């Protein structure tokens, strides 16, 4: 087992295709192919992409109730290569429902609340997390922090991992990110989909992004990856900064989960012994491969290698 992925607040994603969706009307779906149920959450997604690349991972997190059980069973059914270890609580796992109306080109989302986690269960989880750290090389921490859990929880988790000699890759946002940075995670990919404010600073221009990444590098992180201008990634280390771009002739089919595919590709490169620059290329290639398909699918190592041909790099001054 090489990789541990952590998703404290996973969700069962349900996408329903309803043409001509109207508020206040009854819509019956007769074709089961128009309902897609899948386990979701940043760490879980990374595990699913790693599975496609033939990399074994153990996915840990907190699940609850019958929804949690359904989440777990679905994950097992679709991804036999993923080892799991979930802590179960009484409250139900989050459900995120999306109504996709292709005629009107609209998405309507309803996100249900997740479980409230008390101190006792958090401590139990941390114990399981610590035990599993002894068996992996890389730990991926991603997603939101559940209700009841302190916002600096990731900081403690990163400190434990780094102390055990485990490389950490962090993909979080907001205040949990600000706390997490202090523990000097190896690689940070800030999640800026919801807000472009990172560590109290608003990011607008490329210079803002470079400065923000440099600040994190100066605090001890080895590499920072920012999604910039939707299709580009800014990658910054203490020695260089590059914009990784997708060749413009390619048409995107889907942007969902692309950031998680990036992390899986990055891990592939690292485990293959590549340096950070080369690994970032693999990350970008996996993201491109994922963008080319409608589902969360990078087409295995072959698909990622095809993606490599569409990666362009442009040096950015530090």
């Amino acid at each position, binding site marked *: 087992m090489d990789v541990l992925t952590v998703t404290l607040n996973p969700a069962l994603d349900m996408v329903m295709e309803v043409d001509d969706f109207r508020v206040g009307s009854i819509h019956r779906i007769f074709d089961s192919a128009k309902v897609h149920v899948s386990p979701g959450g940043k760490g879980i997604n990374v595990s699913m992409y790693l599975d496609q690349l033939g990399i074994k991972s153990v996915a840990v997190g907190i699940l609850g109730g019958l929804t949690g059980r359904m989440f777990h069973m679905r994950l097992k059914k679709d991804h036999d290569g993923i080892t*799991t270890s979930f802590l*179960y609580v009484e409250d139900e796992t989050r459900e995120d429902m999306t109504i996709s109306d292709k005629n009107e080109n609209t998405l309507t989302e309803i996100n249900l609340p997740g479980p409230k986690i008390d101190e006792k269960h958090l401590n139990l989880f941390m114990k399981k997390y610590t035990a*599993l750290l002894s068996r992996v090389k890389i730990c991926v921490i991603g997603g939101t922090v559940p209700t009841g859990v302190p916002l600096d929880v990731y900081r403690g988790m990163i400190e434990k991992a780094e102390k055990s000699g485990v490389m950490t890759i962090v993909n979080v946002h907001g205040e949990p990110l600000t706390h997490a940075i202090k523990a000097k995670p190896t690689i940070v990919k800030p999640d800026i989909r919801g807000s472009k404010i990172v560590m109290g600073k608003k990011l607008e221009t490329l210079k803002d992004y470079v400065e923000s990444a440099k600040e994190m590098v100066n605090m001890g992180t080895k590499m920072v990856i920012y999604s910039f201008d939707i299709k580009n990634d800014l990658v910054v280390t203490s020695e260089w900064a590059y914009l990784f771009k997708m060749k413009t002739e390619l048409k995107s089919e889907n942007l969902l989960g692309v950031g998680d595919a990036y992390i899986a590709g990055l891990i592939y490169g690292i485990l293959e012994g590549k340096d950070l620059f080369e690994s970032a290329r693999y990350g970008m290639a996996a993201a491109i491969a994922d963008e080319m398909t409608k589902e969360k699918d990078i087409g295995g190592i072959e698909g990622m290698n095809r993606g490599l041909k569409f990666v362009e790099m442009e040096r950015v001054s530090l």
Partner: protein
Amino acid sequence: MKVIDFMEKDVTAIFIDETVEEFIQACARQFRAGMPVVDSEMYVIGVITESDIIHAIVPSYMEMLHSTSFIPDTDIVKERLEDIKNKSISEFMSRKVDVLKTTDTLLSAAALIIKHGYRFVPVIDEENHLVGIVTRAGLLKALLK
């Protein structure tokens, strides 16, 4: 077919210092009949099942009776569980544990289950870490494929 091909890749386990109540809740929430007991590095050091707990709370004289239906229901079992629920599972677990290796055959797994009546058997890797479990249903499902 080897154990690696049909085992459930789940390393959910319980630590030796967790309580009986925590174990019961974990089993109920995950529809499990028992769990491997591991140390802080995920080495399997025992197994605990619901039967171990039921055995501990039902008075031993009940086992000697041919019929128990004439005995009025009292709260004795509930009281006994109340007495032990905060105790460590280490007092009730089995320390002698049969395990399977990922390279063992399905036939040897089936034989082990039949011989001892196990509902599940922990699976370990070459370094003796827990890597999954074999269940009766999982074994039969693999044969149907």
